[in-house]
C-alpha cells in the first residue's frame, strides 16, 4: 500500500489568477493527498505564478498527484523536483525566549555551526534566521527544541529552481 512512501517535490507553473491557490490546495485536501508545504509567488511574467509543493506520498499516489495537477486548466506546467538537480532552500526563523547569558553563547555557537544569522537580540531572547534545506531546518528545530524550553518557530516552506550545472541541493 505505502510502496515508496517518501517526501517529494513538485514545481508548478500556474496562471496568476484569483482562486488558483484554493484550487490546488483543494485538490490535496479533497483527494486526501498529503500537503507538507506549499509556497507561491509571481514569476518574471506577472501572469504566471510558480509554486513549490512538498508532499509525502507513495509512488502510485504521487503519479496521481502529478496527473491531477496536469489536467487542471489553470496549471501550465508540472515539474517533478524529486530526483533532478535543483537549488532548494527554506527560510526559518526561530525566536528563543527566556535565555540566560550562557544560553546566548550556545545559541551563537549553534548559529555559527549551521550558518545561521542572529538577526535580533533582546535582554533574554535571540532571533535566528536560517536559510537552508527543509531537512536541515527540521534538524535544527529538533535540536533547539531539546535545548530550550520556550521557542517560537516560523518557516516559509521550500522554494526551488532547477540547477544550471549539475550539483547538489
Amino acid at each position, binding site marked *: 500500500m505505502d510502496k515508496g512512501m517518501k517526501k517529494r517535490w513538485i514545481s508548478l507553473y500556474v496562471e496568476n489568477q484569483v*482562486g488558483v491557490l484554493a484550487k490546488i490546495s483543494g*485538490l490535496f485536501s479533497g483527494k486526501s493527498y498529503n500537503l507538507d508545504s506549499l509556497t507561491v509567488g509571481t514569476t518574471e511574467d506577472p501572469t504566471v505564478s510558480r509554486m513549490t509543493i512538498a508532499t509525502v506520498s507513495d509512488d502510485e499516489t504521487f503519479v496521481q498527484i502529478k*496527473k491531477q495537477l496536469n489536467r487542471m*486548466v489553470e496549471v*501550465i506546467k508540472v515539474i517533478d523536483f524529486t530526483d533532478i538537480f535543483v537549488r532548494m532552500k527554506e527560510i526559518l526563523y526561530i525566536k528563543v525566549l527566556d535565555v540566560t547569558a550562557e544560553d546566548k553563547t550556545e545559541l551563537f555557537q549553534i548559529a555559527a555551526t549551521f550558518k545561521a544569522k542572529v538577526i535580533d537580540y533582546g535582554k533574554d531572547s535571540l532571533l535566528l534566521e536560517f536559510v537552508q534545506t527543509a531537512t536541515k531546518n527540521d534538524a535544527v528545530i529538533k535540536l533547539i527544541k531539546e535545548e530550550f524550553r520556550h521557542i517560537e518557530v516560523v518557516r516559509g516552506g521550500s522554494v526551488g529552481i532547477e540547477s544550471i550545472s549539475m550539483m547538489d541541493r
Partner: protein
Amino acid sequence: MKQISGNRLLVKALMEEGVEVLFGYPGACTVDISDELFDQDSIKVILPRHEQALVHEADAYARTTGKVGVCLVTSGPGATNLVTGLATANYDSVPLVCFTGQVARSLIGNDAFQEVDIVGITRSITKYGITVRNREDLGRIIKEAFYIARTGRPGPVLIDLPKDVMQEMGSPEYPKTVNIRGYKPNRSVHAGQLKKALAALSKARRPLFLAGGGVIISRAGQAFTEVVEKTGVPVVTTVMGRGAIATDHPLYIGNLGMHGEYAANMAVNHCDLLFSIGTRFNDRITGKLHAFAPKAQIVHIDIDTASISRNIQVDIPIVADALDALEKMMEYVEENPCSKWLAQIHAWKQEHPLAMHSVGDELNPVDIFAEINRQFDNTILVSDVGQHQMLAAQYSAITSGKQLVMSGGLGTMGYGLPGGIGAKIGNPDRPVVVISGDGGMQMNIQELATAVLEELPVIVCIFNNGYLGMVRQWQKLFYNQKYSMTDLRAGALTRRTDFKEHPAYTPDFVRLAESYGAVGIRVTKKEEIAAAFERAKTNAATPTVIEFILDPEVMVYPMIQPGGTLEDMILDN
C-alpha cells in the same frame, strides 16, 4: 465600433456558439440577461421548475445530442441548486456551460443578499470555474468555457457573472479562436503503444474488450463494433458503456460489476487480456481490487491520463480519445479466433442466464422491459437511480439507434424525469422513455409541469414498490431485514410498523399526473403492460405517466457485495 453591454455580448456569444436551447431560471442578478433573451428567436429558452432539474435537463440534452448543454441561473440559491447537477455531469463527463448570476463586484464578500461564492463551492465538481471580473474578459472567457466543456474529457464549466460587469458597456467582439496555455487536449494516438496493445490482443488466448462510457461519449459505437467484429473478441460493458455495441450482438456478453451478468464477471475473472476503453475502473465494477481480472494483462485507452492506473494498474496505457484510437485500430487490427474461449463464455451464459423469477402473481419488471424493447425503436431510455436503474442496465436492449442515459457515476436520484425532458427537447422525433422509482420520481416531480407546458410526450414509467428499493435490498441481504428509513408508505411508522396498518401510498401518481395535465395510467397486471405503452404512444401532446405497482420483494440479481469478489456473487435462486 458600437459598444454593447455584457448582457448583450453573452446572448451574442451563445448565438455564435450555435446554442439552440438554454435552460434558465431567472432572478435578480440575471434579470438583465432574461431581458436580452426576450428579443431574440434563435435560442429556445426552457423554464424548468427547479434549478437542480434544470441542470439535469441540460445534461441529458447534451448526452443525447452531443452538443454543449447551457444553463443560466441566478446568484445565491439559484447557483447552489446547481451543485448536485454539476457533480452529476462532472462524474459522467457531460459538457455543460453554466452561467450563474452574481452580485455586483462592490458587494462581493459583504454577505450581500443572494451572494454565495459559487466558484469556490463548485471547484471540485467542475472541470473549470471562473468569475468574470472585468468586462473586457467576458468574450474570451465564454469562448474558452465552451471549448473546455466539449474538448478532451468533457465536463461542466461554470461562469459566474457579477451584475455590474454584465451591465458595463464594452467591445461587441466575440473571439473566433481559443488559446489556453495550460489546456491542450490530446488529439493524437501513440502508434507505438497502440501496436503494442494490438500485438497483445492478437496473442491473447482469452481476450476481452471492456467498453465504458467513453465509447458512448465520443460516439465511437460503430467504430468499436467494427473493431470487435474484425477481431472476433467478446465484449463486456460497464453500465455507462451499455450500447457501445448492440446488446443483441453475438459477441456481447453483458455488463460487468456489482449487478453485472454472471458470464460477464466470469469472463473478466478468467481473461488473459482485458482491452479496456473509456472507463475509470470504478469500485462498482471492480469490487475488491486485487481480485479484479487477476490473470489479465490490462490495456487501457482513455482521454484522461488521471483515469489511467488510478484504481487498476495498467500494463499498456494509451492516452487518446476513444474514437481516434478505434479508427486507428482499424488499420492494424487482426482477427483472433478464440473459439474455445467463446465456448466457455457461452457455457457460463447457459449456467446462469440473466433472469428474474416472478414473485407470485406480481408484475415482473422483466416483462416491462421486454415490452419497451419490443414496442419502441430509436428509443432514448433515461433511468433514475436505484433498483430500476440496475434492471434497466441489465434488461434494456440497446440496439442500433437506441441510447441508455443515466447518472452512473454520482448516482443522483431525481435524474430520471428531468433527464427525459432534456433528451426529448434535444430529440423531438425519438421516443423517450423514463424509468424511475417512486423515490427518485418524487425528487423532481415538479418537472411534470415543464414537460406538460413544453408539450413533450415523454413516457414516464414509475416502478412503484413503496420502498427505496435498493437500500431495502441491502437491508434485506445484509441488515437482518430491518427496513429502517426505506418504507415510503409508513410515515411516522418508518422505523417500526408494530403491525399497524400502513397509510395509503402518497401521492396518487395517476391523479397527480392528471392534475398536471398529463395522462396517468396504473398497471398492476402483466396483461396491462402492452396496452399501457400502446396508449402512451398515441398521446403526442403531453407526457404519459405509467405507474407499475411492484412487489417490494423484487430484488436485483446477480449482486456482488460492496468490496466483494466473484465468490461473493449472490444469484437469484
